[in-house]
């Protein structure tokens, strides 16, 4: 036992930080409570560094419940860093309610859940990890208690989340009934001797997969996303939009690569369809949106669609593409939402029109937003371009040219609404002349994400290599 603990030190550290935050909250005087944010951020970074120390390890621990491999560790590091950005964004928002302790406890618990999902190799652990990720998010979405929209966001997210949790469990019970085990690797070995066309297996798999796709807001399980993104306080939206999706994808990857490697040929049907539907729905519905948060929600759905292509392809290249995509996606979205927060402090309605004239009111923010939107669009020399390129290239390489074509066509559609925001910022006269103040914390996040987006876009080699490191315990290609 004892030695196994070395491998879960990052998780233990996050849990410890969470409890420290919770207990420190009791003793800190009211005006000093924002200190808790920095304690959490320190914990997150420390955990990220400790995780980085584990790169290269390939072990399975805790009675095969949990695996340590490069895929898990890299995603874990990205999750931790992205979460620390999201933590920074909330400091200003929490000044009003002063509920720092609760907020950061919930955030850290959610991060803990995601970390466990990225490494879990057992259906129970995956399920609990997803629940541990989601339950704090339900509460955080409803954090602005007096705001009706926030309540609606929390309730919708919660009800749909519970429904999909039930569906997932049902699917898991079917898989358990078929194979007699919940361990992903053992499921794979058991299935070697069974008829893969068994409809029970197919239904069980579909149920489990649908549960996981809810987490990443892929069509047809995306209905919660726009309302939740719009209603939740924007710092929470930033967190929900950028971070948990990595955990959702990690769960899917584990399931696809570890438990059902035999099915590789068949994934293209399921995930190809999901990817196509998700891309088209996200992009088409993003066009008429007037609210910037809703627009970003649909754009997020579209991005999930692009990323799903890599699961349809499901080989080593696609997997690195996916990890690369996740890194780029997190950076772009955190930055964009940080800017939405800054603008929202002046005009709280979060309409796209509120960005009118931002080019003159706050040239820095407008410039940053332009870069991030171009990156989301997939403009060359940005992270978004490289991410899409890698994913589409892997599809072409495997012979799924149609998926790549659909992806490119969708990127063209997305031009319309991304450029719409840019047009508002530079070509529409401002409604108010009020300047947009940038608090240090938000400025830091914007700066970091813009820098990351640019650096990844201009010098992608290093990140591609990092993503190439990704391999899985028990995976067969």
């Amino acid at each position, binding site marked *: 036992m004892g030695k196994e603990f070395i491998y879960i030190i990052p998780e233990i550290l996050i*849990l410890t930080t969470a409890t420290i935050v*919770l207990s420190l909250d009791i003793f800190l005087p009211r005006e000093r409570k924002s200190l808790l944010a920095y304690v959490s951020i320190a914990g997150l970074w420390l955990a990220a560094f400790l995780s980085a120390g584990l790169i290269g390890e390939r072990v399975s621990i*805790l*009675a095969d*419940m*949990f695996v340590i491999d490069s895929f898990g560790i890299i995603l874990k590091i990205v999750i931790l860093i992205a979460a620390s950005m999201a933590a920074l964004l909330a400091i200003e928002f929490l000044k009003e*309610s*002063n*509920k720092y302790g*609760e907020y950061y*406890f*919930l955030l850290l*618990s959610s991060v*803990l*859940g995601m970390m*466990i999902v990225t490494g*879990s190799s*057992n259906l*129970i*652990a995956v399920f*609990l*990890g997803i*629940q*541990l990720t989601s*339950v*704090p998010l*339900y*509460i955080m979405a*409803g*954090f602005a*208690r*007096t705001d009706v929209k926030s309540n609606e966001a929390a309730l919708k997210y919660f009800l749909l989340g519970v429904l999909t949790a039930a569906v997932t469990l049902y699917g898991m019970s079917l898989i358990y*009934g*078929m194979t*007699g085990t919940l361990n992903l690797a053992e499921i794979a070995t058991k299935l070697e001797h069974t008829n893969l066309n*068994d*409809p*029970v297996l197919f*239904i069980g798999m579909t149920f489990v997969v649908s549960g996981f796709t809810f987490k990443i807001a892929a069509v047809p399980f995306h209905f919660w996303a726009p309302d939740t993104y719009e209603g939740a306080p924007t710092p929470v939206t930033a967190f929900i939009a950028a971070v948990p999706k990595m955990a959702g994808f990690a769960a899917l990857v584990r399931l696809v690569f570890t438990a059902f490697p035999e099915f590789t040929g068949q994934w293209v049907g399921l995930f190809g369809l999901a990817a196509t539907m998700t891309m088209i729905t996200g992009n088409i519905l993003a066009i008429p949106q007037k609210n910037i948060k809703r627009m970003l929600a649909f754009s997020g759905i579209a991005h999930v669609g692009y990323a799903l292509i890599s699961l349809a392809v499901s080989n080593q290249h696609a997997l690195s593409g996916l990890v690369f995509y996740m890194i780029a996606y997190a950076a772009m979205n955190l930055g964009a939402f940080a800017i939405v927060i800054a603008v929202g402090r002046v005009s709280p309605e979060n309409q796209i029109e509120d960005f009118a004239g931002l080019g003159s009111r706050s040239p820095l923010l407008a410039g940053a937003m332009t870069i991030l939107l171009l990156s989301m669009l997939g403009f060359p020399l940005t992270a978004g371009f490289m991410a899409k390129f890698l994913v589409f290239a892997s599809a072409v390489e495997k012979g799924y040219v149609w998926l790549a074509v659909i992806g490119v066509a969708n990127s063209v559609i997305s031009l319309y609404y991304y450029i719409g925001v840019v047009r508002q910022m530079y070509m529409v006269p401002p409604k108010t002349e009020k300047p947009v103040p940038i608090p240090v914390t938000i400025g830091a996040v914007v700066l970091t994400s813009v820098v990351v987006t640019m650096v990844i876009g201009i010098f992608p080699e290093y990140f591609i290599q990092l993503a190439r490191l990704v391999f899985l315990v028990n995976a067969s290609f």
Partner: protein
Amino acid sequence: MTVNGPTIAFLILASLILSAAVYIVTTRNIMHAVFVHLLALSSVSGIYILLYAQFIAAMQVLIYAGAVTTMVLFALMLVKPKAGMEIALDNQQKGMAFATAGVFLSVLLVVLVPKVWATSQEKLTPLTVAKFGKILFTKYVLPFEMISVLLLVALIGVLVLASKEEE
């Protein structure tokens, strides 16, 4: 299927659970729904006893009868001024819901009924508390600890959502 004591007991319990479940979703009296829900949950604990898992059966009764049902009753009585009065069960999407559920049910019936499940040949041995504890803290230690964090999260979450706003 051989007809013996456990099989008969299982059939009785299963039909109790199912009919209770149907009653819960069709009754218009929400209080009746809660009480019948308790019946369903207790019958589930009966199934655990059939599987020789006494501890889990007792846990099921304690948690669901003692805690969950009582909590639900409290919440209902606190929220609704006329507790137990009829509630509306209709909405515009009734047809859609029925259609979806119907499709779902028929797919499941078509797929699951003819399926021959591989059953374990091992003889069922009683799950003693000692054995249960050992499994819980070795094989399932990760889920166990995760559930404890999850419950703590739920606790804090309730405080966040329900506590009085500070002045």
